């Protein structure tokens, strides 16, 4: 289902959607772009490059209550499940790299065992993607990891910016539904529109990006160089802040803690929070031994997880090339540089 939406009608589409869902879009606030709720009457424009925080927060929040518990003395504990009850949400301006990362997250959270909390949120959110006519960031490298500036995986709708208008393509049933809500705003896409989209997409693909030469050689290099002292050199500046992991659209490790608010009666919540393999205590054992007690070991873990282990387990790259970890690392650690170093080391 391909349609055309004139640029000045984008706000009207959002307004129509607001009747039945919360609408989010990239907003520039506190000096950075992030997905925020769009207030009625607010202008909706897409000059955001990419957001700092990825779209994963909509399906996998930083803090999530799994259930509440309460136990009166002498009685059995009462558990109250707290499945997400948020209403539907529509998120505009999601880049293809975040959409593809959603496919990776779906593999982790819904295949094998369907995580009900993740699933509940995933079912309720609609991702409206925006193709990248030019790389949003100087650190983009989606093409190197099997992605593209106009990929639709994981997205429900894909918009492409054309001259004075957007080409809008619904990719899933949810996508068709939200387009259908505002049917009157759209025009049908004609042959001329389709050919302009082709041209724009082709130009986007040929735009220079950062590049990792050969991913299979990278995987080979990672396998062979597990014990290499290179890792300590590459991670020497690492401060263990975890920004790379928290801002990554496909990183998904979590911790679960009980937060007790009262002892008598015993009451509290079981809470799931994001966890971070770059934190020094991530692999701390209760004995006090920490198998990954150096930044080199932790960096190696993250890179291998993204470019080797996930590939071995699921046959796809976990990294989608958004470049956030590179742009926001306070000390300039660069996954593209690391991958290229490992690729060169593959032959040795």
């Amino acid at each position, binding site marked *: 289902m391909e349609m055309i939406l004139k640029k000045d009608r984008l706000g009207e589409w959002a307004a129509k959607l607001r009747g039945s869902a919360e609408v989010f879009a990239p907003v520039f606030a506190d000096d950075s772009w992030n997905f925020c709720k769009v207030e009625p009457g607010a202008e909706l424009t897409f000059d955001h490059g990419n957001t700092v925080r990825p779209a994963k927060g909509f399906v996998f929040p930083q803090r999530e*209550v799994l259930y509440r518990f309460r136990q009166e003395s002498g009685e059995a504990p009462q558990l109250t499940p707290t499945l997400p009850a948020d209403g539907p949400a529509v998120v505009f301006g999601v880049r293809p790299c975040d959409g593809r990362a959603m496919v990776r997250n779906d593999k982790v959270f819904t295949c094998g065992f369907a995580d009900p909390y993740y699933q509940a949120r995933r079912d309720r959110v609609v991702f409206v993607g925006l193709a990248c006519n030019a790389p949003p960031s100087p650190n983009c490298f989606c093409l190197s990891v099997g992605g593209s500036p106009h990929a639709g995986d994981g997205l429900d709708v894909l918009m492409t910016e054309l001259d004075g208008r957007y080409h809008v393509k619904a990719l899933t049933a949810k996508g068709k539904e939200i387009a259908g809500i505002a049917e009157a705003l759209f025009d049908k896409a004609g042959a001329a529109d389709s050919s302009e989209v082709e041209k724009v997409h082709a130009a986007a693909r040929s735009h220079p990006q950062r590049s990792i030469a050969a991913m299979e050689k990278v995987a080979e290099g990672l396998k062979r160089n597990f014990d290499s002292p290179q890792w300590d050199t590459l991670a020497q500046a690492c401060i263990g802040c975890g920004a790379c992991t928290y801002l990554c659209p496909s990183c998904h490790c979590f911790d679960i803690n009980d*937060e007790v*608010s009262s002892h008598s009666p015993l009451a*509290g*919540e079981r809470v799931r929070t994001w966890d971070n393999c770059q934190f020094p205590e991530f692999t701390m054992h209760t004995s006090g031994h920490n198998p990954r007690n150096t930044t080199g070991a932790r960096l190696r873990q993250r890179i291998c997880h993204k470019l080797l282990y996930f590939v071995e387990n699921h046959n796809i790259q976990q990294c989608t090339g958004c470049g956030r970890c590179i742009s926001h690392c306070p000390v300039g650690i660069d996954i593209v540089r690391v991958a290229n170093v490992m690729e060169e080391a593959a032959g040795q």
Partner: protein
Amino acid sequence: MNKVPEAVETRNDKNEVQDFEPKVVAFLCKWCSSAGSDLAGVSRLQYPPNAVPIQVMCSGSVSPMYIMSAFNKGADGVLVSGCHPGDCHYLKGNFYARRRIYLVQKLLKFIGLEPERFRMSWVSAAEGVKYAEVVTDFVKDLKALGPQRKLKAKV
């Protein structure tokens, strides 16, 4: 983000509306202020029972964590009380406390907590009357301020 709705009135465990009774956590140094509070009791002085006394060895051993944690767990007011300057059982502990508590107070105020919720006093072992006065005034002021919500953990 889960937003807990603000309570308009205070309710007890049985969900009945009641007059607000502030909870005060009082860190009292063993050698002076705690003894002073004991004296108030032994002298049968009447004063509000809202303060939970926690005996510490010296006001200088009161870590800012105790104070912040008390507010985090729901205290409406926190009192730190020690020996008068020059009388510290450990000679200098209360001088360190004086400096540290000053900084904690400024920090709490900067974050937006009402400054009247956090107090410090010098109460000697002989000043049972003063201790009763300090607590009485504190509870009176806290009643006017209402429950502390800014730092309380919302579960």
